[in-house]
């Protein structure tokens, strides 16, 4: 037995979600992701997907679903065993290894551009792209020197 217009309800729900979204404290969301999940994400790596009115832990709640863009890196040793999984959005943590004789691995995991260049772009990496990644176990002088080389390559005519 329909007693009201479904569109009125849907429009009201949408307006409510829009109002909640407008006043969202994005900084607090970023902080929560950082402290609770060790994800250091910028606002443009999060996109609102949908909202709903639900009951959660015995109370009315507004459930806001966000799509979060995170790159995961799986670390595999020379024996083919996975020894770590790192999210590249995580805060840097001190690197620990099980085998002290294992060669030190870079602390920083290479991230990738969120959206790749168009298909058909040059396949061969430029010297700047292919140069060894600057890592935290480099001394400051070497880091600065690598950066100078990177800039020189980028600015080469």
């Amino acid at each position, binding site marked *: 037995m329909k007693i009201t217009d479904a569109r009125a309800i849907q429009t009201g729900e949408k307006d409510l979600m829009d109002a909640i979204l*407008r006043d969202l404290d*994005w*900084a607090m969301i970023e902080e929560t992701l950082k402290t609770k999940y060790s994800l250091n*994400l*910028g*606002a*443009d*790596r*999060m*996109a*609102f*997907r949908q909202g709903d009115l639900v009951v959660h832990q015995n109370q009315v709640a507004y459930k806001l679903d966000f*799509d979060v*863009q995170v790159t995961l890196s799986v670390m595999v040793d020379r024996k083919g065993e996975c020894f770590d999984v790192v999210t590249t959005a995580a805060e840097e943590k001190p690197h620990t290894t099980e085998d002290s004789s294992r060669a030190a691995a870079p602390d*920083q995991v*290479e*991230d990738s*551009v*969120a*959206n*790749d*260049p*168009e298909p058909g*772009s*040059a396949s061969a*990496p*430029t010297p*700047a*792209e292919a140069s060894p*990644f*600057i*890592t*935290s176990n480099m001394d*400051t*002088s070497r*880091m*600065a*020197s*690598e*950066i*100078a080389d*990177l*800039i*020189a*390559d*980028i*600015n080469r005519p």
Partner: protein
Amino acid sequence: MKKIISVINQRQGAGKTATAVNLAVCLGLMEKPTLLVDFDPQGDASACLGVGSEQTSGNGIYQALAGRRTLADLQRDTDFDFLKLVPAGIDLFAAEADASAMAGKETLLRDILAGAGNADYVVVDTPSSMGFLTVSALAAAHVVVVPVQCHRDALLHLGYLLKVVAKVRSGINMGLRIGAVVFTRCDTMEEAYAQVDADALKNMSSSVFVTTVARFDGLQGPAPVADIMAKVSEDYFDLAAHLVQE
């Protein structure tokens, strides 16, 4: 020819917004028709020029990205005769989600800024991340200005940033260059030499303009307005003059 300058660093606190705003203001004070595009959903650059989020809802750059408004519609005057602003708008957060289904999405901003016909300089402030918005700003730019804090950890992240710049340059923007590296909260180059390797910085200076910007406590509005005689104002004017002359 219009020069598009994107101010980029994926790290928070590097001084992007301060650099973007003060650079744009200095260019305006030099009577160079300039457009400041606030491409950071946080809207801090817009707020620095007195435009709050309540004024920009539905009137920000996202409307151009979504094809609903033109850049000309969105430009607004500022207190500076030669400087206009396209604010961010809170709806810019939606840019990633809406654009993800479109091919060539990274060049959207470039196409939009081609319509900034009245500006000789376009300065783009970007968010503290390396997502769609920042990559779009790289794809649109003629030059990149990189503010960076003068310490070791900042160099580590600068290296990653430069790799991304190289990738964008080889993929979708072959004319992209680093226009300047700006060590922020650093009073002199001697201080920068002390924090970072002097030889490496001098080596870097042969490829790019390396400069410092003096400490500036908080962004209480543009530095030249607060105190045009301050060292920080002089530093930003030097940066602007270099980008005009190169």
